[in-house]
C-alpha cells in the first residue's frame, strides 16, 4: 500500500491538538509537562523560539518532544507565550543505545507540508556529545544547532528553519 501523504498542520491546529494551552474548552491529551516541575527535584525547563528564513519569529509552530529513555512525550505551540517561545518541563534523559542524552523533536507549522525531525542535545554533556554517532554525522560547524544551551533558568534551544544558523533536520 502507498503511504498516506502528509499535509500541513495549518494555522488552526490549536484547538485540536493543544486546546488547554490555548484556552479552548476541550481536554488536552498531551501538554508541555513531561514531568510536574513541582514534584520533580531534577526537573529542567527547556524553551526556545522558531525562526523563519527572514529571521522572524514563527508564532504558529507546534513542537513535539519525545524522550525515549523515560518514554515521555510533550507538545506545545508557539502562539501563547509573549515571546512566542515553546516551553517544556522535563528531566534530562538518560542514554539510549549508547547515545548522548537527547530528546527527539518534531516540528510542525503552517507553511510546512510535511513535518521536520531534529534532536535536542545538552551543552553540559560535552564528553557524551563528542562520542555521539548522530552528532558526529553532522558537519562540525552545524552541530551547535542541535545543542541546547544551559542558562541560569534551564536550557535554550532555538530552531532556525533557514539561514546561517539553520537547524540540522534529519531524514529518519
Amino acid at each position, binding site marked *: 500500500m502507498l503511504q498516506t501523504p502528509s499535509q500541513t498542520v495549518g494555522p488552526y491546529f490549536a484547538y485540536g491538538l493543544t486546546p488547554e494551552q490555548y484556552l479552548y474548552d476541550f481536554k488536552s491529551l498531551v501538554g508541555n509537562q513531561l514531568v510536574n516541575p513541582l514534584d520533580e527535584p531534577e526537573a529542567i525547563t527547556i524553551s526556545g523560539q522558531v525562526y523563519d528564513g527572514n529571521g522572524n519569529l514563527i508564532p504558529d509552530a507546534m513542537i513535539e518532544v519525545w524522550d525515549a529513555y523515560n518514554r515521555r512525550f510533550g507538545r506545545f505551540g508557539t502562539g501563547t507565550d509573549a515571546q512566542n517561545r515553546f516551553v517544556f518541563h522535563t528531566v534530562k534523559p538518560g542514554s539510549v543505545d549508547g547515545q548522548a542524552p537527547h530528546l*527527539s523533536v518534531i516540528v510542525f507549522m503552517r507553511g510546512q507540508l510535511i513535518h521536520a525531525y531534529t534532536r535536542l542535545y545538552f551543552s553540559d554533556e560535552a564528553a557524551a556529545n563528542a562520542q555521539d554517532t548522530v552528532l558526529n554525522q553532522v558537519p562540525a560547524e552545524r552541530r551547535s544547532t542541535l545543542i541546547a544551551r544551559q542558562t541560569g533558568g534551564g536550557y535554550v534551544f532555538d530552531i532556525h528553519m533557514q539561514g546561517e544558523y539553520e537547524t540540522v533536520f534529519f531524514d529518519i
Partner: protein
Amino acid sequence: MSQLVYNAFDRDVHPPYLSPDYKSTVLRAPSKPLVVIKHSLSELTGPVFGDIHLGALDHDLTKNARKNGEPLGERIVVHGYVYDENGRTIPNTLVEIWQANAAGRYVHKVDQHDAPLDPNFLGTGRVMTDANGYYKFYTIKPGAYPWGNHYNAWRPNHIHFSLFGPNITTRLVTQMYFPGDPLLQYDPIFLGVPPKGRDLLISGFDLGITEPDFALGYRFDFVLRGQKATPFETV
C-alpha cells in the same frame, strides 16, 4: 540473516518542504539537505496512547460542544482503517481530528473569515482505532474557506488529522478531502502532493456506512510507514 527496518518517507507521494505555489513554504522550508540517520531506539519508540481514556463524546463532534442545540450543517460519519504499508492494520492508535464548521469558520482567534461561528460546534475530536485498526466518528461536513495565499484562494472542504502509529517515524499529520470538490484543482496545499499521491487524500462516498435519515458516510483509510526486511550489516 535479516532484520526489519522502518521504511523512509515515500517521496513519490509525500509533498516536498519547498513548494513555492504555497507561499509560506518559501521561508519555512529547510534549505539544506536532511541528514539521514540510522534508526535507534530514539526513533523506534514513541508515545503510546492505547490506555488513555478518551471522553465519551470525543468521537462525536456533533455532540461534544453543544451549548443550546444541535450544530448546523450536513451531518456526516467518517470511517476507515489505519494500516501500515504492508497492509497490516494498526490497532489502538490515536487519531486526532480538527476542522472548520459548516460555514468554513474555525473557532480560532486568528481566523478572521467573515462567516458565522456555531455556538454548538467546536470542531475537534479524537478516536482510537479498535483491535482491528478501525475508526469511526461523527461530525458536520466542513465548509470551504478563503485564505490569503493568492487572489481568490479558497481551501477545499477538508478535515485535519494527526496520527502516531507505533513510533515517531510513523507520525503523520494530514488532511482528508471530499470527492468531486472543484476547489482541489486550484489548491496549492493539495497540489503540493505529487500526482501519484493526490487521490490518496480524497475520501470516498460510502453508501454502506451512510445512516438512513441521519448522516452521509465517507470512507478514508490511512497508511503509515511500514517495515521491510533488510540483511544484517556485517561489520
